[in-house]
């Protein structure tokens, strides 16, 4: 349904004896604002897919099944309570050099989405740095941010926000 809306601004019309030119019969207009066509008014819809993969069995069990690290407000420091968890994941990455990990950093919902994306990135980078210090290799680990876009909890209170300030670890096949 290509829409055409032809517009003729006639200087003559303003003068009081307007004429309308059929756009299909008119030549190229010169001094008027021209026969105009609405362009780009149509929008073709696109839908994204849902990428899936085959997950590794080993990372579905035991301590490796725990994938989240939580942060204090406005902080990017890995709290002591999560250090043994990070060490376990580092050991798994060292023992399985072909396995890759995606760290998704997250922020609570307050403030600018793009700034929160950058804050989530800092959290993801902090975890990545720790994994690398523990022996994982740079090419195994990618740190990205989901900003405030993937809250685990949807209410506007601190109990909720503290769950949303976190890193999630995904392994090959899960991203």
């Amino acid at each position: 349904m290509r829409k055409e809306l032809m517009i003729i601004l006639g200087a003559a019309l303003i003068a009081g004896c307007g004429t309308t030119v059929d756009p299909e019969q008119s030549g190229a207009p010169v001094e008027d604002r021209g026969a105009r066509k609405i362009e780009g008014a149509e929008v073709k819809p696109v839908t994204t897919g849902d990428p899936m993969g085959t997950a590794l069995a080993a990372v579905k069990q035991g301590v490796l099944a725990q994938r989240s690290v939580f942060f204090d407000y406005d902080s990017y420091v890995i709290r002591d309570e999560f250090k043994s968890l990070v060490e376990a994941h580092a050991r798994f990455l060292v023992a399985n050099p072909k396995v890759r990990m995606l760290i998704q950093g997250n922020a609570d919902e307050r403030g600018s989405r793009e700034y929160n994306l950058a804050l989530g990135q800092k959290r993801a980078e902090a975890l990545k740095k720790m994994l690398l210090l523990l022996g994982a290799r740079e090419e195994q680990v990618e740190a990205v941010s989901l900003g405030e876009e993937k809250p685990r909890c949807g209410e506007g209170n601190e109990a909720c926000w503290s769950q949303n300030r976190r890193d999630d670890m995904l392994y090959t096949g899960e991203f």
Partner: protein
Amino acid sequence: MMTALLRTAFALVLFALAFAARAQLTIEITGAGANRLPVAIADFAGEPGVARAVAAVVRADLERSGLFRLVEAATPLAENAPVDFADWKARGADALVVGSVQPAGNGRFEVRFRLHDVQKQASLGGLAYVMTAQQDRATGHRIADFVYEKLLGERGVFSTRIAYVVKRPGRYELQIADADGMNAQTALASREPIISPAWSPDGGRLAYVSFESKKPVVYVHSLATGRRHVVANFKGSNSAPAWSPDGRKLAVVLTKDGASQMYSLNADGSGVVRLASSAGIDTEPFFSPDGQFIYFTSDRGGSPQAYRVPAGGGSAQRITFEGSYNVTPRLSPDGRSMAFVTRNDGRFQLALMDLATRQTQVLTDSHKDESPSFAPNGRMILYASEIGGRGVLAAVSSDGRVKQKLSVQAGDVREPAWGPFLKH
């Protein structure tokens, strides 16, 4: 990651058209200008259905702007009918629009209208259009733009479009609608978030950030064809696209070299050049309308504040100093003022700074404002807010007087971006 993208590409086809979302934005006017110009829009003469529809769109547009007051004028008046100026003056109208709709063959109609200055008893001009019955809204917007420009001396934005994201459970849609919220069309539907849409200066393309491959990736999407391509998918996060005024380059934020930093690249993704360097976060770039500067948010001074850097490189200059959280700097189309989001006592509000005097005015009294976007004539600022836990769009005039609320039923609306003027 590439294989995931390829799988995604195949899945697109299967999904397309599966959902034809028809979520209409409804606009509620919550404030108006101090001095509204009284204008009468008579029903157009001729084909009753089409004539009434066109005149109704003109009325709704002018009234929604908050700058006009409609004077009752129900009786149809033809474009060339003699005008009883004394009578219209007595009714309180400063301006009068009259028009006619006639069949023009092949299912088309000819719409003529004329704008009269009632005080001066003179014609301010008119136009003639040939349109299909389905183009009644587009025609009405064009007429409203003509009236607006003749009476106020600045271009109207009734024919422009807006982009925004609607979130429903498990589903995100990037939608394009007319500036009055009607005619909403879905450009992209995804199970993963979509943020930061930015119109190309020609209005044909949108750059945005999509999380469909489990991380933020920047795309450029041609609206008419639905064709899109990845412009930034580096290791780490890719986000915050901004077009240069000539439409040839994009500024983006990448984390490939560590923290979030700004880079420029060509619209096809080539030619990546770092724009600035800081130890912390640099994000939310926005080109000044003259292309000379890039305004952005940075925490290099300890708290997030607005800065600017010459587009060709150079040292950064801090713009905001009051308060501990000033983000998302967006320049007005004339380059004279800057809208941004400021935090006051835990509330995030839209503010406007006069760049010459550095005077700042907080424009809203809400608590979760974000993502400001100027109308191309600079009159209104569209932004995202929250009412009753639901995402809505709102618009406020640069003087803070005119206010509108835009919402959809059963969904969160966010991430608005006001498109450019239509090409003449």
